[in-house]
């Protein structure tokens, strides 16, 4: 802190010196409004220099004390007058000397300097209360469903990194942890680490940005449920030049090949891949259309010789009148997903327990959801969803469901959501459930999802 005090003192002294000279200047300059305006100009220049110095102090504070000589020289060149530069440099040299002297700490406790370089930290709590009866997939009355810790920072001039660590009630899981290379040539953006795969829309979303308490049946049945396709691997993304006002973007990813019940890697070569092509277009200033096709392929739990293919189509329509963007909006979204898996015939299953009704060859399952969310006031959102999906290991069985959702935001950092969910499971079992969800965020202000 001392270096800032020195700098501030220098600024104040400089201003005092400058203002002290002014009364002397007035009587000397005989007559005329031109002198007054020259004086006004001089005061303005001094004010500007003071503000520029304050700005530099803020920047130094934000960057932390280790100000490199390049930084300070670049900052000093902001002031145009050569005499100003000499005046400015003195306190900055003082900053540098004190910075080198004061900041030696033992044991890594670098004080403010170390804190300045800490990543942005956020915690999002997700508490769910459930009522009603579900014979197939019961939920507890109360659960601290997830506590997600986010750590995000810029690594170096070429990359940034994001970690999302999810604490459930029973364990900890690195939901995502990846580095993003932001300065690659030719506009490529690459990621490496563990990440949610770019398959469709819902699979890419964290729990706290979903428009529902749960995930739709098609995600639960065909794309690995809450964890989804979330695996360690590499991702490359590139914007493709497109005609008209279309935005086209391609993402190609390859993963180790272990994701929930979707993919299983029985040996090192059983990689899985994901490809996603996204097309986006502004229809008007207030509305836009977001379309996507996805493909994914990997080895399934029956072994290296057995492949699961996933195909997806997604469409999202956003409407938000810009003049009233904080009060009114509508999002309609839908995803269609097909899953095709090759599997052994029942009598060939020796090492693992084959699910019943397993026919040899291919098992093809399909599912979809469609939902709409309307924000009718600054703090209120109402929505509905219909969804249905075949079961992945017995595609003759089909689950159907529907939900009604009401969301209230006390502030930008908290959310209360109620959801009524009806599910008709394949075996004729019905479930009527109500959920109340509380979400609350601490720490760094995250970006709003789109």
């Amino acid at each position: 802190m001392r270096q800032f005090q020195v700098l501030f003192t220098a600024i104040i002294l400089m201003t005092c010196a400058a203002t002290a000279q002014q009364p002397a200047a007035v009587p000397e300059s005989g007559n005329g409004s031109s002198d007054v305006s020259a004086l006004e100009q001089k005061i303005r220049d001094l004010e500007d220099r003071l503000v520029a110095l304050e700005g530099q102090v803020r920047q130094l504070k934000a960057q932390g004390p280790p100000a490199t000589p390049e930084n300070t020289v670049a900052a000093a060149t902001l002031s145009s007058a050569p005499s100003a530069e000499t005046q400015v440099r003195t306190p900055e040299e003082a900053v540098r000397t004190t910075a080198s002297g004061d900041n030696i700490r033992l044991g890594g406790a670098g004080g403010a300097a170390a804190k300045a370089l800490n990543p942005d930290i956020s915690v999002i709590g997700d508490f769910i209360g459930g009522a009603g009866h579900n014979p197939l997939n019961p939920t507890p009355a109360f659960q601290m469903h997830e506590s997600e810790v986010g750590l995000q920072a810029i690594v170096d001039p070429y990359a940034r990194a994001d970690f999302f660590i999810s604490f459930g009630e029973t364990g900890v899981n690195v939901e995502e942890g990846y580095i993003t290379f932001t300065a690659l040539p030719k506009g490529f953006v690459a990621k490496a680490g563990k990440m949610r795969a770019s398959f469709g829309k819902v699979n890419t979303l964290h729990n706290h940005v979903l428009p529902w308490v749960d995930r739709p049946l098609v995600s639960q049945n065909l794309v690995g449920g809450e964890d989804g396709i979330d695996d360690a691997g590499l991702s490359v993304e590139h914007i493709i030049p497109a005609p008209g006002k279309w935005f086209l973007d391609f993402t190609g990813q390859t993963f180790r090949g272990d994701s929930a019940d979707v993919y299983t890697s029985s040996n090192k070569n059983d990689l899985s891949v994901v490809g996603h092509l996204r097309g986006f277009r502004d229809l008007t200033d207030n509305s836009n259309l977001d379309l996507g096709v996805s493909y994914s392929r990997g080895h399934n739990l029956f072994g290296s010789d057995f492949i699961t293919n996933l195909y997806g189509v997604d469409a999202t329509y956003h409407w938000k009148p810009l003049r009233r963007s904080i009060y009114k909006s509508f999002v309609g979204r839908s995803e269609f997903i097909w899953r095709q898996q090759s599997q052994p015939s029942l009598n060939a299953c020796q090492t693992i327990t084959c699910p019943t009704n397993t026919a040899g060859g291919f098992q093809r399952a399909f599912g979809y959801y469609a939902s709409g969310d309307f924000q009718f006031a600054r703090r209120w959102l109402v929505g509905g969803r219909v969804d249905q999906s075949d079961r992945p290991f017995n595609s003759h069985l089909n689950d159907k469901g529907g939900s009604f959702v009401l969301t209230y935001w006390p502030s930008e950092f908290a959310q209360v959501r109620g959801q009524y969910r009806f599910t008709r499971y394949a075996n004729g079992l019905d479930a009527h459930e109500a959920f109340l969800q509380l979400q609350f965020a601490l720490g760094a202000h995250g970006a709003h999802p789109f």
Partner: protein
Amino acid sequence: MRLPSKLFCLVSATCLGVAVFAPQRASAKNLKVITTLTDLASLTQEVGGDKVDVESLAKGYQDPHFVDPKPSFLLKLRHADLLISVGLELEIGWLPPLITQSGNGNIQPAARGFLDASQFSEILEIPQGAVTRAEGDVHPLGNPHYWLNPDNGRRIAKGIAAKLSEMDPADGAYFQQREQDFEKRLAEADKKWQALMAPYRGRKIVTYHRSWPNFAKHFGLDVIGYIEPRPGIPPTPSHTIELVNLMKRENTKLELIEPYFDVKTPDSIARMAGGKVVVMMPSVGGKPEITDYFKLFDYDIAILTQAFQQTQ
């Protein structure tokens, strides 16, 4: 394994093909500048003249805290030479993911083509001591609506001129000359604005959000209260009653609100307190006729002085 790896090769080949055959950026000499807000775009245009191509991401009538990070913005950002932002966490909800996804190394934070205009400006309301969100959606680095003071406009223009000269030294003299010309015109315009506002110096006003401290400071207005109980928190009945009483007690008539806020509560406050709602434009482009930084103040001062006259 064979098939997936084939597919991945195909994917990579497609990407590479796209990269190689993508039309190269035209070798136009102009610097391509993207700004987050229209005000910064206007200041850049003043300084850059016909040597720069400037475009803003947000519209002037939009709440700058809540802009959707639409992929179409990426098309603008991917070839930008320079990105100028307001900073002070005003755009924190939407700009960081756009910068990351832009695939443009030039405009990443701290890169040469990233400019935070707040460093040039006088920043008000920097919180002292501990900051918590009990105070609402506070900006821990200070109030980001700083462009609404012509003095800061001048300083930002100076900063932008220095940056443009650094990036395009050949046109350095041109930028400096335009900046000085802008400074002169702004000083003249400011004299006119100050003269128009002079009769109302010291008047008390309330505002919806804390968007106007810089404007109020420059023109000598006294902001005594806010329609929002806390920044980012919508009005509550109890706070509204308190505000009405305060306005009556302090004989305050005018409520300044931004075009993106609902006028229902301000209107009812105006009825109860015998005041008037003035929809002020916080940014260039808020109305079609506000085409530049000068017209922004022309417009705001015209409707404000008119409102003061009506509530004498």
